[in-house]
């Protein structure tokens, strides 16, 4: 009896230990592509005199890669990149297999990377790591690539040397390049994908044309409220409301490029610390008092804000271009129409000094970590998307399946545009193409992504500004100031956000604006600006 008892408990202990050691329940996904050495579909690079990089000369190379799960592809019916045809094709065409791990979000990604065992390739938003790419290099997450790119990644190297804006955007404070970077072409209008949009059908009802100056905008909102009886002419949702100021679309009318950091000929300024900021707040306060701005701008969430516009309780909303398609197709009554408004100016006919714009760099970047044992293979893999074939794969996907040549122009097939399962075009592009990795966005591809004329028009409207003069390309703080900057910034950021809400809602009278500036001063704002100025100088190579 006693022997059986002992045996059973030992078995239990063993079972628990095994259960504890095996499997961790994270989103571990593995895949191995094929390593075909030849065939007509695996094209070789068309680079100049370099020997053919693809298919990769070593068979059976498997690299590990980590990135965040992609919500976009779930809307195309798959849950992980391992199942995506585009991603599989990328591996087949290069002859290098990838073992992909997907984390839930940036925080989970940082935790994953902190665990010590690094994958070969890390793909994430360019700015996801505190302390920037220099800190990533220090922590072993990124190796310097500058010297190796010419040999190991000739197509990427060729691209970034084509225009100094690309090279300068990538270069870090120490002069090195650490990542493969996705880019927009410099003049792409698709860099400005967020802005103010207004219901064209309401404008028609009050016989007004789309406003370009800030005063016209106020007049339109007033007309909406008084003539049409619209409850909340300008609705805002909590995650986007601050962006009206930080993107610059609203502040441009008051001569302020943005409410956050910007530079004028190399001198760092912080928008919320400038006198002109008061004008922007005064304007919003006026809208609030007249009932033209949503009183719940800090609480409303995006779905509520969108339904408000769709139901006609609101006339204007500040949101991303994709929402134009979402809302128009949701209402689908032939009357509902949204028009994008350019960033506001003071006087008619001016071009706005600033407005929402992404840097030429697309947000996704790819780094090779210190733990990578096969750097040439990793470089070759990431370089592929910059070759002509890779660029087609990146933007359009797989020839014959997701795109065909119509009159010599690559056009998306019906599988993409009129998908039988009801998936919309955008997620499908990410499933067949490799848009959420690092490559160069093709203008022709972008143009086809937007079925509505209003979207194309909105992009054109939102990109009419001169923000490039003021944006700071490289935000990374110098390593020795990182802790101090983080301490100062967390408190200052909280204070600025609170006071913005209070000034706009009138809880704090605008006459106290000077007291607000003084408080910022005592919190160490000048020191913060000094640190950022020093970092800016270093990034510009001074």
């Amino acid at each position, binding site marked *: 009896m006693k022997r059986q008892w*002992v045996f059973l408990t030992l078995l*239990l202990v063993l079972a628990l230990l095994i259960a504890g050691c095996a499997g961790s329940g994270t989103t571990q996904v593995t895949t191995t592509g094929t390593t075909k050495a030849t065939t007509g579909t695996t094209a070789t690079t068309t680079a100049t005199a370099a020997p053919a990089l693809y298919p990769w000369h070593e068979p059976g190379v498997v690299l590990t890669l980590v990135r965040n799960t992609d919500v976009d592809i779930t809307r195309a019916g798959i849950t992980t990149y391992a199942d995506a045809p585009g991603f599989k094709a990328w591996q087949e065409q290069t002859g290098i297999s990838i073992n992909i791990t997907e984390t839930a979000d940036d925080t989970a990604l940082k935790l994953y990377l*902190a665990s010590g065992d690094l994958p070969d390739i890390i793909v994430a938003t360019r700015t996801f790591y505190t*302390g920037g790419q220099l800190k990533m290099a220090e922590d072993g997450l990124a190796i310097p690539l500058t010297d190796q790119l010419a040999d190991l990644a000739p197509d990427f190297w060729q691209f970034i040397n084509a225009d100094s804006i690309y090279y300068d955007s990538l270069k870090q404070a120490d002069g090195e390049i650490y990542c493969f970077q996705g880019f927009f072409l410099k003049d792409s209008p698709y860099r400005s994908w967020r802005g103010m949009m207004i219901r064209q059908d309401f404008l028609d009802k009050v016989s007004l044309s789309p406003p370009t100056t800030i005063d016209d905008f106020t007049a339109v909102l007033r007309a909406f409220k008084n003539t049409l009886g619209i409850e909340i002419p300008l609705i805002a949702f909590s995650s986007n409301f601050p962006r009206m100021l930080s993107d610059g679309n609203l502040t441009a009318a008051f001569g302020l490029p943005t409410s956050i950091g910007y530079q004028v000929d190399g001198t760092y300024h912080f928008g919320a610390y400038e006198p002109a900021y008061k004008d922007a707040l005064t304007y919003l306060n006026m809208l609030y008092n007249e009932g033209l701005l949503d009183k719940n701008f800090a*609480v409303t969430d995006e779905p509520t804000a969108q339904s408000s516009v769709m139901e006609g309780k609101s006339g204007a909303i500040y949101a991303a271009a994709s929402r134009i398609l979402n809302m128009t197709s949701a209402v689908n009554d032939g009357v509902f129409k949204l028009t994008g408004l350019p960033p506001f100016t003071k006087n008619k006919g001016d071009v706005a000094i600033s407005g929402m714009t992404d840097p030429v760099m697309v947000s996704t970047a790819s780094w090779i970590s210190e733990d990578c044992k096969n750097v040439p293979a990793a470089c070759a893999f990431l370089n592929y998307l910059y070759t002509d074939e890779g660029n087609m794969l990146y933007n359009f996907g797989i020839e014959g399946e997701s795109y065909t040549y119509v009159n010599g122009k690559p056009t998306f097939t019906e599988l993409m545009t009129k998908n039988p399962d009801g998936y919309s075009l955008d997620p499908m592009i990410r499933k067949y193409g490799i848009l959420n990795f690092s490559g160069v966005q093709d203008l022709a591809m972008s143009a086809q992504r937007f079925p509505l004329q209003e979207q194309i028009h909105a992009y054109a409207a939102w990109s009419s500004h001169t923000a490039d003069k003021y944006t700071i390309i490289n935000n990374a703080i110098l390593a020795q100031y990182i802790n101090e900057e983080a301490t100062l910034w967390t*408190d200052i950021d909280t204070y600025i956000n609170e006071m913005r809400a209070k000034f706009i*809602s009138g809880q704090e009278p605008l006459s106290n604006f000077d007291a607000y500036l003084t408080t910022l001063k005592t919190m160490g704002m000048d020191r913060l600006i000094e640190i950022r100025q020093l970092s800016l100088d270093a990034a510009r190579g001074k």
Partner: protein
Amino acid sequence: MSKQILYAPLGRPLPIWQRVTRDFRQYAGAYVMLIPVLAFYFLFCYKPMFGALIAFKNFSPRQGIWGSAWASSYGFGHFLSFFRSYFFGRLLRNTIVISFAGIILGFPVPIIFALMINEVKNRTFKKSVQTISYMPHFISLVVVCAMIRLFVAEDGFITQIMKIFGYPGTQNMLNIPGAFVPIYVLSGIWQNTGWNCIIYLAALAAIDVELYEAARIDGANRWKQTLHVTLPGLAGTIVLLLILRIGQLMSVGHEKIILLYNDFIMERADVISSYVFRRGLVNGDWSFSTAVGLFNSAINFTLVVLANKLSNKTSGMGIW
């Protein structure tokens, strides 16, 4: 096998090591069952404690715990940075206020609820009330917060009800700093009362029925019985749970706060854990968040010890 005696034939107890080895041999099975429990506590509770060291260093994952440099000010740099934060006073105040309100308002409610359920004679009614009351506990916090945001909106049903009693109700109550603590605490009470009263119901069931009979014979009515039999019977459980609750005073969880707060109510809603979330996790400042966590644990620990001492002195009951 007959039970081995632990006393030497002369009647004195054996030396301790002999007692232990004999006990071990006889009840080997029980000790073996203890191994996974001990392993769990050692691996997951005690071994990670040494990682608290990073609170005194500038931790970098690459350099590891030993390789990272020590923080400024003899290792206390992060603590000082936290105490000197512009909002430190406010964070501390909000944390304590929310915790205290939670204890003062939230602690008695499950007890009273358990007493009331106990009085109910109809078994079906009793069981169904119990089941329904602990259902909210299982609703995800994210869903509860989404519900709260809807209910306290201008047209939300709670606002409507309050309007009947004369409340102006012109805006979403989550815009009003003063309303945050009531919203937070009351929704917590709603969600957790049913679940928390389970343990009191168990304790109530364990009170000897004869004591009630004796009280009835002595002429006590329902209320006097509750006062003199039920409550003393519950006292042990209440003291235990209260001391444990006080030990969580500084640990207002960040999830619910972050789901509910916004720029308007930061002055009442921002607590230590949400601040640390923004500063530590979002910004990847591991050392800083560990330092604040250590600070919280130190305070909680002190409070538990004091509460226990106080309880022992006043009522003779305590956890240890």
